[in-house]
């Protein structure tokens, strides 16, 4: 059996390990357009911040492909999939045959469609190469404009502030982190970040980037100008679906996959940022372009490529962030956009604590934990297992709410909590 994987970040790496854990002999080929793909994408901003050294960015050791007997085609782009011939055409004109294919092509940063965005000194922050290029020009940079107040934008801002730069973040929405947390928690985080010396301007976007050989300024939508020598764009990502779409498989925002992470072609699977799969909280297909999802999907898709028919429970949005010592973790739906949701909120302004639970018919579908993150995973388990939490509703936001408080729930529910570790904890109850 010839297994081919396109992409060698979180999903690709975890798929390789999963195949190898079950089949020591199968032929595995991985294709990546990056020459050195085994780094952790999430750590790029840490590298830029100088809070980790280069050694720490490697998610797997150099010898990973060799150790797993993988034929790694690196620095070469996969260009075309021929699903009938079961063949992939590469940028170097070679062709690769497959029996089972995993598309783990990830996503690409969205770039603003404004004049000047193609100038030197304007960067997204997605690859190691971006980080290296940004680092190489830092000596000449005093002021930075970050366009976008999402996860990447703020991480980039934090990194560059840490490197001694004057940083301003321009956010189109009325709040930062609008895809991840609600306004109440975002406002606390924003004030905290501002106190540490990063300027955040909400409700403001850029309409032009000016400069010649080097950048000079960003023109904002109120016609004011912000002088800067570096612009970082953090406007989210688009799934890299073109190759799959051209090959005639079903795509939407991403590559649409079923509960086995299989595409509309039975020999081709997709995992990670590129895959659009069932979302547990939203109860519809969605993309959650996050590291944990890519890892679990890569593993599960690999098992199904081996013929195991493992059902994927679905994805869940999840993010963990910390800026200047203030951590926040969010899971699922944090800002309900439709009717029929209930919100429980507890705030302690002196301690910068903000906790929120979002419910639909007494089942948790989302949560935010700002500066009180240690037991949020338990809430995550309640979301995943769709438990009616009526019996613990009055204590769920208390600081003493811990695993012990859901043990009876786990015992009483008829469905869910199928992992054996849950059973182990209740077998003596």
């Amino acid at each position: 059996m010839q297994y081919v994987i396109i992409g060698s970040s979180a999903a690709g790496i975890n798929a390789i390990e999963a195949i190898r854990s079950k089949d020591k002999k199968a032929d595995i080929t991985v294709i990546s357009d990056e020459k050195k793909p085994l780094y952790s994408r999430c750590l790029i901003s840490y590298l830029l911040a100088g809070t980790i050294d280069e050694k720490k960015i490697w998610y797997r050791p150099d010898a990973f492909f060799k150790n797993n007997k993988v034929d790694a085609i690196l620095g070469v782009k996969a260009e075309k999939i021929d699903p009938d011939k079961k063949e992939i055409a590469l940028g170097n004109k070679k062709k690769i045959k497959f029996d089972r294919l995993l598309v783990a092509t990830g996503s690409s940063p969205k770039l603003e469609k404004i004049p000047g965005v193609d100038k030197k000194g304007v960067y997204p922050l997605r690859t190691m190469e971006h980080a290296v290029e940004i680092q190489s020009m830092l000596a000449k940079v005093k002021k930075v404009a970050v366009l976008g107040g999402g996860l990447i934008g703020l991480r980039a801002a934090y990194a560059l502030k840490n490197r001694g730069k004057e940083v301003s973040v321009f956010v189109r929405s009325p709040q930062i982190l609008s895809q991840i947390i609600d306004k109440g928690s975002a406002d606390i985080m924003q004030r905290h970040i501002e106190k540490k010396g990063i300027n955040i301007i909400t409700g403001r976007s850029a309409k032009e980037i000016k400069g010649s050989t080097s950048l000079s300024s960003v023109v904002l939508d109120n016609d004011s100008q912000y002088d800067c020598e570096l612009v970082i764009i953090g406007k989210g990502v688009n799934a890299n679906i073109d190759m799959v779409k051209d090959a005639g498989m079903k795509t939407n925002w991403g590559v649409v996959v079923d509960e086995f992470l299989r595409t509309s072609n039975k020999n081709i699977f997709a995992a990670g940022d590129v895959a659009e799969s069932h979302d547990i909280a939203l109860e519809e297909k969605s993309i959650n372009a996050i590291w944990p999802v890519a890892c679990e999907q890569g593993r599960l898709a690999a098992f199904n490529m081996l013929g195991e028919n493992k059902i994927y429970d679905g994805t869940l949005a999840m993010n963990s962030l910390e800026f200047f010592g203030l951590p926040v973790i969010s899971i699922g739906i944090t800002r309900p956009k439709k009717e029929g949701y209930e919100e429980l909120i507890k705030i302690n302004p002196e301690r910068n604590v903000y906790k929120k639970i979002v419910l639909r018919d007494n089942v948790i579908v989302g949560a935010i934990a700002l500066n009180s993150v240690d037991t949020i995973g338990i809430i995550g388990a309640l979301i995943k297992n769709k438990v009616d939490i009526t019996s613990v509703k009055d204590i769920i936001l208390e600081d003493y709410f811990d695993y012990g408080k859901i043990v009876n729930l786990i015992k009483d529910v008829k469905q869910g909590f199928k992992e054996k570790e849950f059973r182990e904890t209740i077998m003596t109850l």
Partner: protein
Amino acid sequence: MKKIYCDIKKCLGCGACEIACAVEHSKSKELDQSIKESPAPIKRRKAESISQSVAISTGCHHCDDAPCVAACMSGAMYKDKKTGLTKHDEEKCVGCWMCIMSCPFGALTRQKQDKIVVKCDLCPDRDVPACVEACPTGALFSGTEKEFEIKLKVKTKK
């Protein structure tokens, strides 16, 4: 796989496991000295109340399909291929708290000073984990799942 199990019927929630764990993971490994250490020693077991008279001592369950391993973006959290245990390489940890986000048991703790996470390591320097040894009622048990089941059966027969 050998790990730690808790018999809820015997657990008083007294917290002896917590203290023994924190002391074992201190620099001095002596209670009187360890409480003065900086950073303060951190317990990796938690005695938690279930209801007024029922409690559980919980920690890392070394899940087969460990969500913390999938979530770890630095490769610090990993499965030991030989033993199946979930291990943590503190050198690789960057303190992103993604494992905390995904652990359904709340078994991970932040060590804020060095910005790393700490978890149960089953006391590699000891034959019997400190928490098991310290448990005054014998609620905690170190062994395989089978061994734990046998122990429970023997007890009910009596």
